[in-house]
């Protein structure tokens, strides 16, 4: 199976030939991948070179933490890649964005109102956790709606706080 992994806008063609071999571009590499104690830590041996990394799927991206650097990799097989190219680049800028609590904590303030226009980077909610106040910001321009929390509320992780349309 052929895949395309994109890291920092650079594309890597990686073909998985069998469990022990991949082709990167035109080079055939012997690989051996095992997980460490069933955790998202992987040990990879490539042509004799040994690497260890955290590999975790987060949203649509595989986050690879390798030797102190984070490489966010988008991995698609060729079919997906073609589909996406056909659909154009209208992803993520439309539809409703749901702001969820990234961690459990206490709502300190909700400095926006229902129906308020916000720009990318505006503070939507201030959430206190681990003695730190964290500003949750708008990922893009839009209109605030469905505010479900108030100052003083305790929230669980991943609770929907409000939406931006």
């Amino acid at each position: 199976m052929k895949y395309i992994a994109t890291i920092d806008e650079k594309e890597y063609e990686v073909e998985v030939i069998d469990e022990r071999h991949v082709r990167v571009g035109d080079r055939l590499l012997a690989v051996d991948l095992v997980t460490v104690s069933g955790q998202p830590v992987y040990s990879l041996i490539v042509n004799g070179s040994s690497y260890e990394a955290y590999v975790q799927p987060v949203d649509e991206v595989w986050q690879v933490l390798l030797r102190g650097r984070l490489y966010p990799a988008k991995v698609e097989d060729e079919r997906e890649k073609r589909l996406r190219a056909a659909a154009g680049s209208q992803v993520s800028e439309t539809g409703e964005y749901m702001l969820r609590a990234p961690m459990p904590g206490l709502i300190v303030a909700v400095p926006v109102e229902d129906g308020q226009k916000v720009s990318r980077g505006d503070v939507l909610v201030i959430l206190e956790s681990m003695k730190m106040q964290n500003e949750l910001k708008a990922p893009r321009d839009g209109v605030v709606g469905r505010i479900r929390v108030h100052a003083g509320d305790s929230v669980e992780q991943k609770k929907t706080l409000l939406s931006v349309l």
Partner: protein
Amino acid sequence: MFKKVLVANRGEIAVRIIRACRELGIATVAVYSEVDRHGLHVRYADEAYLLGGPTAKESYLRGDKILEIAKQSGADAIHPGYGFLAEREDFAAKCAEMKIGFIGPKPSSIAAMGDKAKARSTLIKAGVPVVPGTEDVGNLTDDDLLRVAPTIGFPLLIKATAGGGGKGMREVQTLEEMPGLLSSARREAESSFGDGNVYLEKLVEGARHIEIQILADAFGNVIHLGERECSLQRRHQKLVEEAPSPFLDEDLRQRMGGLAVRVAKAVDYLNAGTIEFLVDKDKNYYFLEMNTRLQVEHPITEMVTGVDIVAEQLRIARGRQLSYKQDEIRLSGHAIECRINAEDPYQDFMPSTGTITHCLLPTGPGVRVDTGVYPGFEITPYYDPLIAKLIVWGETRAQAILRMRRALEEYRIIGVRTNIPFHQTLMDSPRFMGGQYDTRFVEERFSIGETLLDRPAHAEIAAILATLAAHQATERSTQVVRRGERDTSNWKWVGRWERMHR
């Protein structure tokens, strides 16, 4: 003399104190909140008692309950660690009232240093240089402060007299913006400390934050254990400390050390304490504040001096003389500490909570880890994000940096995000290696992403890792689907298959 110590704290520092007690054959009493039942300090202590709910207010700040537990369990002394009750004059006084030893300074010294403006005026009288600012004690009005500001000069800092951790602190560039900043600083100080008093201090530019560890016994002996360089901070929170400071020479060390001893004597200090200084580009130094407790970063001093600071604290509290004289303190080699926080350095240091599922600690020559977490332990949002301190020692600063790099790469914590990649990037930074940094460095001149692109070979390895992991995940999910398609159980299916082939 005491035989049993109650440790009024949690996490790595509670474990650190219990360890010292165990080595000295002193029994220990742990206290814990509802969410800390699985805490390592609870498991390590000889006795453990529940305090109450998860918030600090319901648990580790309950001085009354802690004293009650101390009485009931027969503990003869309390070690407060850092934070929580460590710098509460009233708590230290209550301990004395109830004839329970407080392993720390006298209540009067805590009070003298707790009010920053009062501490300034006490030390000015003792001839200690302080950062130029408002010299008057008391409640200065906004009008007074606005009148004095031009004589101090801009830029300057507004600071809360009850302050700490950067709360109620504002940087002022011009007189025009000062009234607004004054009222917001007062508001923040009022809500954080219940005291809206502020004072002014000149902003020392390009400053380094260097502190001196001191020890004082009840016989009037006061010694210093050299300095710790703590300039690497973010939002006024220290991230990396090293000892000795790459900025100090022996002459300056002795002068600052001598001054620190004088500061301690000026407030009749007892036990371990730390005097913080600001040092400017021209090596002028100014008293900043005194921390009347054990510091988070005390291990680096232990590594370079060989002194067990917590053991000395216990010794002093037992009414014995210090084990060392000043001329017996020798600095050997170099130590660095990285604070490992449950924070995601790629998402603006957002706190990360969850259960630690796997943990592999770095070991080997010159490496020390002080931690309170282990696999299965849950990181909750109720306390500070410090989960471990990674400390290394090297013969030289260069060796210590190389060792720290090695240890950071070995350290595996799974279940929460940590700032380990931040430390790895910092250890690779030429400015850090050159010792060229001040208190603004992390916030203004350092970025975790900056060296990402110069390692293309690793990007390719990352691409292979991501692809193989994605491939395995797809394979697994298609197998699950196939299994579901079969409407009979696997055992039945195997039975039929075997009959068919008989």
